[in-house]
C-alpha cells in the first residue's frame, strides 16, 4: 500500500517576495525606533529652550521656593508652589479615582450581566470623550458654586474642585485598562479559586488582584499621567494661585496651567520664557519618574 503522495513542493519564492519581506521588516523597525527618536527629540528641544537660564538657576529656590513673581523686578522664579500644586491635585484626584475606577473595573469585568456591561462600557467611554475645556467649564460653573455652598468656603474653584474633575477624567482610563487586565486572567483561575470554596469577593481580592496586578498598576499609572498632564481643566478649576495650600479648599496653581497661561505673554528668549521651558523639563522628569518607578515595580513583581 502506498501513501498518497504530497503535491510537488512549491518552487522557492521569488526574489521580489524576499525583498518585500525585508522592506516590511525595515519599515517596522523604523516605526519602533521612531518612538525613541521622538521622545528624545521632544526632550532635547524643550531642554534647549530652557538651557540658557541654567547657568544662573538656583535649583533649591526653583524647586522649593514658593515665590513665583515672574513680572517683578527682580523676578522670582520659585516653582515650589506650582510643583506642590501639581502633586497635591494629582494625589487627591488619585485618592478618589483609584478606588472608584478599580471598583468599577471589577464590577464591569466580574459582576455585571453582559447587557449591563455593554451599556456601562459605552457610557464610560463617553465620559472619556468629554473635552477637557468642557470639564473646566463644569468645574467653574457647576462644581464651584456647589462646593462653595456645601463646604461653606469662600472660593469654589480650588484644589478639591480640580482634583474632582481630574478624578472624573482619569476614571474612564482606569476602568477600561483595568477591565482589560482583569479580563486577561484566564477563567480557569477563577474556577479553581471558586472550587476551593472562596467567595466571589475572596476570589477578586486574593486571586484576581494579584494575578492582574501588572495591568492594574498600568491602569492606575495611565490615570496618574492623565492627571499630571491635564492643563485646561486645572487652569479653569484650581483657582490658579501660586501659594502653598493649607487646606483642601485652597486655590492652587499647577505646572501645566502656569505654562499655558504665561507662555503667550513671555517674550521669546527672555528669562521668563526660559524658566517656563525648564518647568516643562520638570514636568517631563516627573512623568518619566512615575513611569520608571512603575516599570521597576512591575519588573520586581515579575522577577519573583
Amino acid at each position, binding site marked *: 500500500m502506498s501513501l498518497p503522495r504530497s503535491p510537488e513542493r512549491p518552487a522557492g519564492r521569488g526574489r521580489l517576495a524576499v525583498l518585500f519581506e525585508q522592506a516590511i521588516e525595515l519599515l517596522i523597525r523604523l516605526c519602533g525606533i521612531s518612538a525613541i527618536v521622538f521622545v528624545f527629540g521632544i526632550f532635547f528641544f524643550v531642554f534647549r529652550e530652557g538651557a540658557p537660564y541654567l547657568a544662573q538657576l538656583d535649583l533649591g529656590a526653583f524647586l522649593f521656593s514658593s515665590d513665583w513673581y515672574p513680572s517683578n523686578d527682580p523676578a522670582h522664579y520659585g516653582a515650589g508652589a506650582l510643583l506642590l500644586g501639581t502633586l497635591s491635585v494629582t494625589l487627591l484626584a488619585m485618592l478618589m479615582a483609584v478606588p472608584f475606577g478599580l471598583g468599577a473595573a471589577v464590577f464591569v469585568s466580574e459582576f455585571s450581566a453582559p447587557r449591563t456591561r455593554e451599556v456601562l462600557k459605552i457610557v464610560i467611554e463617553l465620559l472619556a470623550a468629554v473635552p477637557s475645556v468642557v470639564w473646566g467649564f463644569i468645574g467653574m460653573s457647576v462644581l464651584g458654586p456647589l462646593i462653595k455652598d456645601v463646604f461653606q468656603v469662600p472660593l469654589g474653584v480650588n484644589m478639591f474642585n480640580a482634583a474632582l474633575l481630574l478624578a472624573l477624567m482619569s476614571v474612564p482610563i482606569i476602568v477600561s485598562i483595568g477591565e482589560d487586565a482583569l479580563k486577561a*486572567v484566564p*477563567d*480557569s*483561575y*477563577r*474556577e*479553581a*479559586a*471558586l*472550587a*476551593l*470554596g*472562596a*467567595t466571589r469577593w*475572596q476570589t477578586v481580592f*486574593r*486571586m484576581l488582584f*494579584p*494575578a492582574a496586578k501588572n495591568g492594574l498598576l498600568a491602569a492606575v499609572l495611565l490615570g496618574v499621567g492623565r492627571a499630571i498632564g491635564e492643563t485646561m481643566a486645572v487652569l479653569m478649576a484650581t483657582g490658579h494661585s501660586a501659594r502653598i495650600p493649607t487646606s483642601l479648599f485652597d486655590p492652587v496653581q499647577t505646572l501645566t496651567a502656569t505654562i499655558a497661561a504665561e507662555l503667550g505673554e513671555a517674550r521669546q528668549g527672555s528669562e521668563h520664557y526660559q524658566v517656563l521651558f525648564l518647568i516643562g523639563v520638570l514636568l517631563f522628569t516627573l512623568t518619566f519618574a512615575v513611569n520608571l518607578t512603575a516599570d521597576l515595580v512591575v519588573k520586581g513583581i515579575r522577577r*519573583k
Partner: protein
Amino acid sequence: MNARKKIEVSGLRLSFGDKEVLHGISFDVYAGEILGVIGPAQSGKTSLLRCINRTIEFTPGARVGGRIAVDGQDVQHVKDVHGLRRKIGMVAPLPVGLPLSIYDNVAFAPRAAGARDRAWLDGHVEQCLRQAALWDEVKERLDVLGTKLSGGQQQRLTIARALSHQPEILCLDEFSIAIDPVTTMRIEDVLKELSRDMTIVLVTNLVQQARRLAARTLFLWNGHIVELDRTEVVFSDSPGDRRTYEYVNGIFG
C-alpha cells in the same frame, strides 16, 4: 456493600444550549470508597465532576436537571455553596497553578475559610505538599510563583491545594496526565491511604489506573452509564456489557 452513601446522583441531565451531554445518569458513591470513572473523551466525565461541586454554573448556557445529593443534601439547594465546595477537593485536568506563590496557592483555601494562624498554616502547607509528593522539590522556594513550576509540578500543586481544605470528597480529573510514572505511583499510594477517611472519585483515561485503585468502576460513554460494578467485574473477561470489555481492552473503535 452497605456503606453510607456519600454522593447520590439520580437522573442527572446536563446540557449546554441545545446539546445534552449527560442523559439522565444515576449512581451512588459510598463513603470511603474510590470510584473510578472511565470513558473516552467527550463522554461527560469532567462535566459530571463539575456538576458535583457546582462549578458547572460558571459555564454560560449550562443547564442541570435531576438531583445530586452530598451527605443527603441536594447541592442545587444547598445554602452555603462555598461550604459545599470546601467539602469537595477538585483537581482539574490541566494544571492550574494560581499566579500566587507556591505557599499562597496551598494556603489559599484555608485562608478563604478564615485560617490566620501562621504557625498552623506553615505546618498545614507542608503536610499538603508532602501528601502531593511535591514538598522535597519546592521546600526551598515556597515563595516562587506557582505558575513557574513545570507542568507535572503544577499538577501536584493542584493536588496539594485540593487537599488543603481538608475535603471529605476528593475528585481527581485525570491527575496524572503530566506526571511521570514514578511520581504517579507515589501519589496513587497517597490516594490509597487517603481513602481511609475520604471518598474519592477518580476520573481517568488510564483504565489501568482505575483497576489499580478503584473499588468500583463506572464506564461512562456518550453521557450514558454503560456499566457500574466492582472493578474486578469491569476488568474481567465477562463484564455486564460487551462495550466495557472492548473499551478496557482497547478494542473499542
